[in-house]
């Protein structure tokens, strides 16, 4: 699927800025309706970081990983294990460690795994994710097995937030996450608009030709893979204090599937697509769960419907609407 990356709304810094602002303003608005709605926004933002990382590999480099839950697990368990064994409470060093650990794994398996593309790569990542999941499940004494590792309140930027009331803590955490997400979004914008980004797109479009042009495809793929891992690992680490638990389910392949779906739901060919997709999906899943006990049935049907009706994602829909509007505007302008 060769898609032209036009310079339009979905890729611009302006769109990012607007999105970040919306996510900041929406929180108190949702919160005034009910805190339960607001907390899903925080989850959505965290997943958007993961989806954005995933999409660097998928949308921009053309590599589908069906095992990105691996890095979510690494992120979450880094936090859990640090809390459990070192007793640290400050989140920042935990985030950094999680990102380093994710990068380490990516650099370790990357050189080998990245020689393959297509379905092989997808299943490779699935297998690696399942290996780690198996470890989390089996090494009960270290990881707590199915019960996971409990994580209490964390300290943000050195502030001890143990005393403040729960809802305030959640609010502060949301803006903390949003700030980190904003940095992550902007960095990603920079990456995809840099020479690296263009090379990746070249690899995606035609790897043989890219290599012929002198691009060191393996090295670049490794860089993209590592960045992707770091983003998703960061998301996993941000997730853990919110769910208060590092549990094996976070590393199960279902989560990998969700990340893929979120990205595609939003639109893999736009920068902000995965962000939009992650937030929309988080609410979609929650609405399905709240609507009926048979929410698997509902969600599965929705997933299939979305893929059939809008395979290029929501941002593509927005695109075509805007294009049509622009055409109408152009016609109107000329006729007047």
């Amino acid at each position, binding site marked *: 699927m060769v898609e032209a990356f036009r310079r339009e709304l979905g890729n611009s810094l302006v769109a990012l800025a607007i999105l970040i602002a919306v996510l900041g303003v929406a929180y108190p608005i949702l919160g005034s309706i009910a805190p339960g709605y607001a907390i899903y926004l925080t989850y959505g933002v965290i997943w958007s970081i993961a989806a954005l990382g995933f999409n660097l590999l998928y949308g921009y480099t053309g590599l589908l990983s069906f095992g990105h839950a691996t890095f979510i697990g690494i992120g979450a368990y880094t936090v859990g294990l640090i809390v459990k064994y070192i007793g640290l409470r400050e989140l920042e060093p935990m985030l950094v460690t999680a990102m380093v650990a994710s990068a380490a794994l990516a650099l370790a398996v990357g050189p080998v795994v990245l020689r393959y593309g297509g379905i092989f790569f997808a299943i*490779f990542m699935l297998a690696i994710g399942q290996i780690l999941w198996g470890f989390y499940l*089996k090494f009960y004494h270290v990881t707590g097995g199915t019960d996971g590792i409990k994580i209490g309140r964390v300290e943000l930027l050195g502030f001890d937030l143990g005393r403040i009331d729960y809802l305030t803590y959640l609010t502060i955490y949301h803006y903390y996450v949003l700030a980190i997400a904003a940095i992550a979004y902007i960095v990603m914008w920079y990456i995809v608009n840099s020479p690296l980004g263009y090379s990746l797109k070249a690899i995606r479009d035609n790897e043989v030709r890219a290599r012929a042009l002198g691009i060191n495809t393996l090295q670049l793929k490794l860089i993209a893979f590592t960045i992707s891992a770091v983003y998703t690992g960061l998301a996993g680490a941000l997730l853990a204090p919110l769910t208060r638990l590092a549990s094996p389910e976070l590393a199960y392949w279902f989560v990998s599937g969700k990340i893929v779906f979120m990205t595609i739901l939003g639109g893999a060919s736009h920068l902000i697509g995965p962000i939009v997709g992650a937030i929309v999906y988080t609410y979609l899943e929650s609405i399905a769960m709240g609507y009926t006990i048979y929410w698997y049935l509902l969600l599965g049907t929705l997933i299939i419907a979305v893929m059939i009706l809008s395979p290029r994602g929501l941002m593509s829909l927005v695109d075509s609407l805007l294009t049509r509007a622009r055409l109408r505007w152009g016609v109107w302008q000329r006729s007047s």
Partner: protein
Amino acid sequence: MALPIYVLDTLFYSSLLFLIIAGLNLIYGILRVVNLAHASLFTLGAYATAWITTSLIVPRLGESLLALMVLPLVLGVILVILVSLALVTPLLRYSQGRGDAFQLIVTFGLLIIFEDLFKLAWGPYPVSAYNLFFQTGFVDIAGLRYPVYKLYVILFTAILALALWYVTYRSAFGIVLRASSMDPHMATALGLNTSRFLIIVIVLASALAGLGGSLYIPVASVQLGLSTEFLVIAFVGMVIGGLGSFVGAVVGSLIVSSLRTLTLIVFPELELVVLYLVAVIVLLWKPEGIGGGRGW
């Protein structure tokens, strides 16, 4: 001392896996579609056969061997085929050529739909129909009792595998199968990959999975979540054996089953991890799989 038993158990489990993986490989080899909902048809076969046995067959025909062996199997597989035609086939056909991501997501949606459908149809409790297992009795092997039923399954599947081999390598249909999987574009250009042919392939694959479930149920119970357990292991076998390959299905199921028995005895803690590690190692060493090559 218990070695013959372990070997037989390995063969039994690999028989079930083979039936699932063969179907996965047919669909991948010929349609190039990855089907995450395939094991759900296995589960459906199990549920359907159990229900047919306990609600329809036993009350009317008693527990005669013939009634238990033939009718539930046949009726169960027919049900699976019908459901596949209604729900699975259209989706798989639609997914053709739409990319791996599309297929994985859409079949994932189907997988979770099936889970809730199973609950609606058969409730949350495990469902079983051990009648045949007990009717066929037990034999003495190396001083230990072994269920005759498992021997039956091993034999049945071996014969079926042979039949499949024959069809693949000695029949006209088999030629088309192999050609289509080796080079789908060429096959289409030659007018082979007709719609009817592809549907037959999907039906065949579904029937094999459903058959697996039917054979499985007399010796185990089925409950919600079974699909996922079998799916991941089937995928590992698919990868180890060789994607889209008949020989790969045989090889993959045997290897995975052997590994599983081995780790259950020797390193039970590592059971899960070993399987995936081996998959990774095989993918690295021989990505087309140990038994695989080009297509079916």
